[in-house]
């Protein structure tokens, strides 16, 4: 038999107190893990968006705004109404001094149409440029449209119209062949039928008109701000928005959340330590008599201190493991609500840190109760003797 046998037996015997101790640490560690993994996941998503879209710029008519989501991130408004973009605006973009910094130029025209009795959005685009820019688009089966008689259907649109590869769909008297089905994106793209820009302009009766132009700027050639400034100058009637700014603001918000999280973590750790301290002090005072017996039969002070610390560390270790699992479970449950497209960031170090945090906090908070137990006068503890 060793000290740990006594520690385990005592924890097992005083289940309610041990459970309270474990729960106190578990909640603390779980909160810390959840907050840190949430902020890390959100930061990761914002950074991934930056990497994926680079310095994408959206050129839209400057007018009455309607909401538009781009790659799952709100980029402000797209104008509808009197002011529209045109093919001429494309040429103006081509003529800016920083043209060499532009890698992709993707004009789009979007309009509502009816097909098979269903209202849906038809997008006219340059398929090659569009698919290059929206690299999250993936055609599960088939290929992008190659001519004015072909169309690719978004996941929701294909489902609504019961479209399969090779089916035909007639829009305003023009028959299109379905050459591809987009994999579900979870965004507005799922509602689209995507066809050649010229064909859509003719169908919608808007020859030469564009809803917006998406621009991909290369990293490192010209500062993105400079490209935006030149586009602004070349297109005074348009609103130019750099995706980078949207992402940057998201990152800034995440940073603020991170700072707030760290403050919460500090408070949670302090409360956790207090819970451990109070529980362990209670346990020591409850066991005064028992400690007196240990001392009377020859336990040194250090043995008593070690015994109390051992109990705290065993409970903390268990709470650390459970706290990490609970924290990650909370992250899984909460993350979709705070950042839709974010993936849970698995950090092995966080697991180690969570367990270490539990053990260190549990150990430090139990230090005084353990020393106090070691210093107990055996005569006082035994009273009878």
């Amino acid at each position: 038999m060793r000290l740990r046998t006594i520690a385990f037996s005592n924890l097992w015997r005083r289940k309610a107190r041990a459970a309270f101790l474990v729960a106190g640490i578990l909640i603390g560690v779980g909160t810390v893990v959840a907050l840190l993994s949430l902020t890390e996941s959100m930061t990761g998503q914002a950074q991934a968006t930056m990497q994926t879209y680079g310095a994408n710029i959206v050129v839209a008519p400057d007018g009455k705004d309607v909401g538009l989501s781009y790659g799952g991130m709100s980029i402000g408004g797209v104008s509808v109404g009197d002011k529209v973009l045109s093919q001429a605006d494309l040429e103006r973009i081509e003529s800016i001094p920083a043209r060499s910094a532009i890698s992709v130029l993707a004009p789009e025209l979007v309009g509502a149409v009816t097909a098979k009795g269903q209202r849906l959005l038809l997008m006219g685009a340059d398929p090659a440029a569009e698919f290059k820019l929206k690299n999250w688009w993936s055609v599960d089966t088939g290929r992008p449209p190659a001519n004015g008689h072909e169309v690719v259907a978004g996941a929701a649109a294909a489902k609504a119209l019961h479209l399969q590869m090779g089916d035909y769909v007639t829009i305003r008297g023009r028959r299109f062949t379905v050459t591809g089905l987009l994999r579900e994106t979870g965004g507005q793209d799922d509602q689209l039928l995507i066809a050649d820009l010229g064909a859509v302009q003719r169908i919608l009766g808007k020859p030469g008109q564009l809803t917006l132009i998406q621009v991909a700027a290369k990293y490192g050639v010209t500062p993105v701000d400079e490209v935006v400034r030149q586009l602004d100058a070349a297109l005074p009637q348009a609103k130019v928005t750099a995706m980078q700014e949207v992402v940057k603001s998201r990152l800034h918000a995440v940073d603020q959340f991170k700072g707030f999280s760290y403050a919460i973590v500090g408070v949670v750790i302090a409360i956790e330590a207090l819970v451990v301290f109070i529980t362990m002090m209670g346990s020591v005072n409850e066991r005064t008599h028992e400690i007196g017996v240990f001392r009377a039969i020859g336990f040194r002070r250090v043995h008593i201190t070690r015994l109390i610390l051992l109990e705290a560390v065993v409970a903390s270790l268990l709470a650390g493991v459970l706290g990490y699992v609970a924290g990650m479970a909370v992250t899984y449950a909460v993350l979709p609500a705070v950042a839709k497209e974010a993936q849970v960031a698995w950090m092995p170090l966080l697991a180690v840190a969570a367990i270490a945090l539990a053990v260190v906090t549990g150990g430090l908070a139990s230090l005084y109760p353990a020393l106090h137990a070691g210093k107990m006068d055996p005569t006082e503890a035994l009273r009878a003797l």
Partner: protein
Amino acid sequence: MRAPVTERDDRTAGAAAAGAAAEAGEAGRDAAAQTAPAGQAAVDERATRFIDVRGLEKTFSGNGAPVQALRGLDLTVVEGSFLGVMGQSGSGKSTFLSILGGLSHPTAGSIGVDGIDLYKLPGERLADFRREYLGFVFQSFNLVPYLTALENVMLPLTVKRMPGAEKRERAESVLDHVGLADRAGHLPGKLSGGEQERAAIARALVNEPPLILADEPTGALDSETTVEIMDLFARLNGEGMTIVMVTHNPEIKRYFDRTIVLRDGRLDCELPACAAETPL
């Protein structure tokens, strides 16, 4: 069970190696190592004064007026004797036992066990002394409720460096010795009062101490169990173990080979010399 007198120097040497040797005992052992007749004389002297109490005083000074529990107690106990300590409540019996057990420091005087001046032991060596030299048997058994009888008996061995199997073997052997082998795996709550007392005695014996201190060990037992337990103590004493027992119970004084009576912190008298009216 008992470490024979002839082995006592080995025990002392072992305890010293473990950090429990008494500084005061060194001179005696050195003297014993001299010529054979002189050495034998030293051993006899230590056996005669196995417990050596001189001018023991203890004053408790709490919030109220100081209370003098012991007022200059002098006593010597021969090794292997069975000493009964009697007296009325407040006479200083328990205080004497706690000081003899190294649990409470005296206000004045000295107390020696086997040549070791207890309260001159440095630091935590008093704890080592309790572990190596003493076995406590408490009135209320004081078994740890969440440990089995066997684990309770093994408790003093917990902090000793020895193989787990040896600890277990020794505890089982002692439990067998006190007639509790078949109850080894039971928690104290599942044992009768007599069985708990036997477990407590086994715990006191497991380290093979030369001295057993018992504080009212039969106080919570019925008369039949009291006889069983006292028979067990008598058997242990017969094996050579020194026992000091504090009791209120005059029925058991027949087991003692010497009985002292304390009154107001002093040695009042010794049976059978005490006056008939001396309160016990």
